């Protein structure tokens, strides 16, 4: 008898599987896109991650790209767990390394539509260098950055996106570091598509992700998202709903705004919209061209 046949199921997760069946798995039209035995997820009540993940799934469904030709790559953190829930090829990598992994994956198999789905700390603190270089290379994949302004999974520490003077567990008297303006970083590094939405702008976000899925090159979408547990409590937004109302009241849509002018320093206004949508040859296109010239020179096919 082979090991495969003789092996007993040993994972306690199978208990969870039974529970989800009872709770009505399979009734929702997007359930096919989720790994049913991985539901329920670990995200807190009021968290915005479910909204962003379902926007991604809706966009993917609308795009018509076959599920088995898509890949979701994530780093570490609450957002990083998204890769574990989707029913497609998914990769949960080391902290900050989702982008270089995705670079290899996409170049390794260019037929697969690849999306990096990760958080602000993962992508812009530990992974910041990889982000700017992938944008510069214009490798053909999408980055969805769920920005909840803190490190949620480790309990609400300051991130490179945490606004000045906000209290977190590592800035107990208020932060004093200038946060990143993410669209500006992305546009400055060379991203061909840059947008910002919030979890309040579900329709626009879904449409934006769909656009990015179809667009060649390095596309970046920042999604502002509530984190009542780690961030909201100390920032005066105790429930997820408070943050959503804040997004509703303070957001202003301004397509084509200069990314340098959309920083979140001004607490009275959040500028959202599609800021950059331009064409530039992708890494793959440019490389094909140069390599072809080299082959012509060498006289090989």
């Amino acid at each position: 008898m082979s090991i495969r046949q003789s092996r007993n199921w040993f994972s306690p997760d199978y208990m969870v599987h039974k529970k989800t069946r009872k709770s009505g798995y399979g009734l929702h039209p997007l359930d096919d896109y989720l790994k049913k035995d991985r539901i329920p997820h670990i995200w807190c009540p009021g968290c915005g991650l479910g909204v962003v993940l379902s926007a991604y799934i809706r966009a993917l469904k609308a795009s018509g790209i076959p599920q088995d030709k898509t890949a979701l790559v994530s780093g570490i953190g609450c957002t990083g767990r998204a890769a574990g829930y989707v029913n497609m090829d998914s990769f949960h990598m080391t902290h900050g390394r989702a982008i270089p992994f995705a670079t290899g994956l996409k170049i390794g198999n260019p037929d697969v539509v690849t999306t990096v789905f990760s958080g602000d700390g993962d992508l812009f603190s530990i992974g910041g260098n990889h982000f700017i270089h992938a944008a510069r290379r214009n490798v053909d994949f999408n980055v969805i950055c769920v920005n909840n302004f803190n490190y949620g999974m480790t309990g609400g520490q300051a991130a490179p996106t945490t606004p000045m003077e906000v209290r977190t567990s590592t800035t107990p008297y208020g932060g004093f570091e200038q946060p990143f303006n993410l669209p500006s970083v992305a546009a400055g590094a060379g991203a061909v598509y840059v947008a910002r939405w919030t979890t309040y702008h579900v329709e626009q976000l879904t449409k934006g992700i769909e656009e990015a899925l179809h667009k060649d090159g390095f596309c970046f979408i920042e999604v502002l998202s509530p984190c009542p547990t780690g961030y909201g409590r100390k920032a005066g937004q105790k429930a997820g709903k408070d943050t959503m109302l804040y997004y509703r009241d303070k957001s202003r849509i301004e397509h084509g705004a200069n990314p340098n002018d959309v920083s979140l320093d001004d607490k009275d206004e959040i500028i959202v919209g599609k800021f950059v949508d331009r064409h530039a040859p992708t890494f793959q296109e440019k490389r094909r061209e140069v390599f072809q010239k080299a082959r012509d020179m060498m006289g090989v096919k």
Partner: protein
Amino acid sequence: MGVKKEGTYFMGGNIACAEGAIMAGCSFFAGYPITPATEILERIANRFPELHGSYLQMEDELASMASIIGASWGGRKAMTATSGPGFSLMMENYGLALMTETPCVIVNVMRGGPSTGLPTMVAQGDVMQTRWGTHGDVGVIVLSPASPQEMFDLTIEAFNLSEKYRLPVILLSDEMVSHMTEKVVIPKKEDITIINRKKPECTPEEYLPYCPDEDLVPPMACVGEGYSIHVTGLTHDERGYPSIDEKVQNMLVTRLLDKVRNNAHDIIRYQEHMVEDADIIILAYGSASRSAREAVDMARKKGIKAGLIRPITIWPFPEDRISELAERAQAFVVAEINFGQMVYEVERCCRGCCPTYLIPRMGGSIHTPEEILDRIEKISKGGGQ
């Protein structure tokens, strides 16, 4: 530019390594310039356009390592090459590759350390780093070439072992071997054995990405093949799903270690030179083994029964053979270009049967045969310390 067919060449170690990779079917290379490994990157960059391969110069070694793991899951044979400072950065995702059982090859051309150390000069100080450098318990395969010919042969071997056992394999060269130019024979392509990873034969519904076969290696589905795989660096069960259960940790890590331990007989390679009747056995690897071999021949001429064992796989260590030899040898002498790393492994395997001596060297140059001979002579007269 280019070696395209079989023949005999006068070739540098790093060039032979790049040619070996190409011969093994490597079609993705990511690297970052670093002395003394840069020639591998340069050679690949020159050769890949005609071969339709993908070469990427990454922003750092963290990214190089992460991207070859990505490319491997994209279905490619992938490699990177570096030296000590870059190798330290790669430790993070080396662990990821071990945990996710990703076949790939890492070349580490050792130079003097610690830190920036001696960029252009030889050392063998990374031996234990290859074994224990990444956190957690790991089973690893590390090969040690001692000539440009072996840079070619063992690069192919490294790919084969990585594909067969689904893990990152390290080719642990040193500056001397990498920058040495010697005769390299490239055999006919059809005479070279190439091993490719096992693919699943079942349907996606039946497929369990981390359920192993008898050899403890699970078949590997890659991205875009319709198997809806989930790959994580977290402790995972047979479905690839994360788990925070002690039992799952136990099953997984035990298998990852056993994969190498139980297959050690298939993995371990070493070369012996006149050990059958030897009283004093020298153990050396890489460039140090070349001086040691010369010293053995010189000792024999003086009537001292010396012999040489050269581990080609450093890890797993050929411990059974060392234990066997220790029972009848008078002494083991380890010549390595560090202040004592493998000597402790030899000492452990000797189990007190015979004394173990170290001929250390700090790096910057290799031992001279005379220096090793001198020590052999002293030991043979009963005064080794």
